[in-house]
């Protein structure tokens, strides 16, 4: 193994680890805020007569808000770097921290506006705005957002520094932000939407469309808040999102580092085929293990 590849694989490991952390933090952040897909249930609940104390953060979907944060963070980091002029390791580190910090402030502001805006636009259903929900949840989601954004900025910076991508820093962070949001809303949200919001319904089936909006509003003790949801989703939804985004980023560059030229296209195709085979087994397993919902009708 040539030394260049060793260095690149080392960098890639760091990138993959950063992506994993980004995925976990991203999903938990969106669970605290009820962002993206399950937001539709929180939005619907007051209309169906179920008033709640959940957060309602609609800063678009996750795949639109994460590139937004990433682009702000990357621009801030570049600006800080140009002011300090320190492009050594420690200078870059603090620039990225500054980027993620400014982002988390803007994230918090946007989150409060969407909570207040959405609930004020539902006044005819009598949904009150709870300022203590704003005060307790907003810092939590800012903190998770900070971790997620710092990880995205870090991985983009390593990719640029190691010449994995010719794109500018901001553009690369933007695209990985979209991918992160895509994975987060496709994977982690299912745990929140299907399981956590409908824990009073039988496990092991989709949510009947007739029950849409009747989210669980009472907790083990007192009323349910969205921080409880993050606690619940951190057991499975968050880590799985992290695994997903980590694999996306790692495999994307793995195929270009380990083999080069046309072989990397072939490696990509082989990985896709492996995932198709794994999915076939998974699908068959789920069907055999869980069985059918209805008896087969006579034909």
């Amino acid at each position, binding site marked *: 193994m040539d030394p260049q590849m060793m260095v690149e694989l080392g960098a890639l490991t760091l990138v993959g680890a950063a992506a994993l952390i980004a995925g976990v933090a991203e999903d938990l952040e969106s669970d605290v805020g009820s962002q*993206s*897909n*399950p937001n539709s*249930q929180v939005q619907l609940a007051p209309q169906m007569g179920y008033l709640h104390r959940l957060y309602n953060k609609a800063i678009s*979907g*996750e*795949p639109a808000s994460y590139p937004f944060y990433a682009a702000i963070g990357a621009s801030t980091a*570049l600006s800080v*770097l140009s002011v300090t002029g320190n*492009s050594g390791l420690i200078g870059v580190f603090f620039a990225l921290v500054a980027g993620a910090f400014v982002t988390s402030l803007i994230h918090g502001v946007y989150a409060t506006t969407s909570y207040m805006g959405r609930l004020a636009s539902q006044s005819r259903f009598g949904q009150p705005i709870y300022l203590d929900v704003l005060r307790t949840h907003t810092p939590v989601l800012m903190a998770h957002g900070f971790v997620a954004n710092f990880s995205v900025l870090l991985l983009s910076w390593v990719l640029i520094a190691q*010449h*994995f991508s*010719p*794109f*500018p*820093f901001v*553009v690369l962070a933007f*695209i*990985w932000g979209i*991918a992160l*949001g*895509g*994975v987060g*809303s*496709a*994977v982690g949200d*299912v*745990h929140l*939407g*299907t*399981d956590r*919001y409908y824990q009073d319904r039988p496990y*092991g*089936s*989709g*949510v*009947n*469309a007739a*029950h*849409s909006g009747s989210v669980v509003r009472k907790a083990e003790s007192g009323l349910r808040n969205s921080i409880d949801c993050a606690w619940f989703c951190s057991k499975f939804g968050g880590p*799985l999102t992290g695994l*997903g985004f980590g*694999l*996306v980023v790692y*495999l*994307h560059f793995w195929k*270009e580092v380990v083999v080069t030229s046309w072989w990397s296209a072939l490696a*990509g*195709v082989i990985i*896709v085929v492996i*995932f198709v085979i794994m*999915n*076939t087994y*998974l*699908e068959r*397993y*789920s*069907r055999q293990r*869980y069985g059918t*919902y209805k008896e087969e009708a006579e034909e």
Partner: protein
Amino acid sequence: MVWFSLLYWVWIILGGILIGAGVHFIPVGGAPAAMSQATGVGTGTTMLAAASGLTGLIGAGSAYASSGGNFAYTIVMGGVSAALMISVLAFIANVMYVYGAGVPLASAKVKYDPITKWRQDLYVSRGTEGHGTPMSSFISGIIGAFLAGVGGALVYFALAASYAGISGFNATFGGYPAPYYVSLAAAFAIGIFFLNCVMASYNIGGTIEGFHDPKFRRLPKSIVASLVVSAVGGLFALLIVVMLPGGI
């Protein structure tokens, strides 16, 4: 007078059509998918296509730079990178459905899966339109992401190859390592990508399961829209070459 290569314009238009067509293949469950109420990956049409297609754009950008502008390699890497992204995404989402929500993967739009021939309707839970990404939607998603990735890579290739010819566009600015032409081509490729995938998602209007979904028959309308939209967008982007005969 410098004129832009007509071939590059054709590639941008073709790329736009492929992006629009690819969006129709990608199984999108939208918001209901998160409640296991609809088959497909749980994100909006536009952003799921963008998430996979733009990951493909990163692959295409690296391939373009490393191969010195090899056409075939750039577009194939764009397509493969996008397909890889969506296969990982859909598989992990399926793990979530099976182990996190405890539902089998099933579609309510067809009785038998066109690829595996497995019975579907019995596995759909009450009051839902299916859940997870079963095999034919999975394959459809990979095809769709491949098309969208190839489309994005075609747009990027055409723009990068055109802009690389402008004198002064190979320069870099200060400590920023990206040359002018790479930055401009990447920014416009993202813009033209969004133009086409938003048009396609308006055409779909909500959720789609893949090539076996009845909504898939709306594809021709989207192709016309993509053709016109990317022809205008591509023309505008390429006219920059004409407007800068002496470079900058």
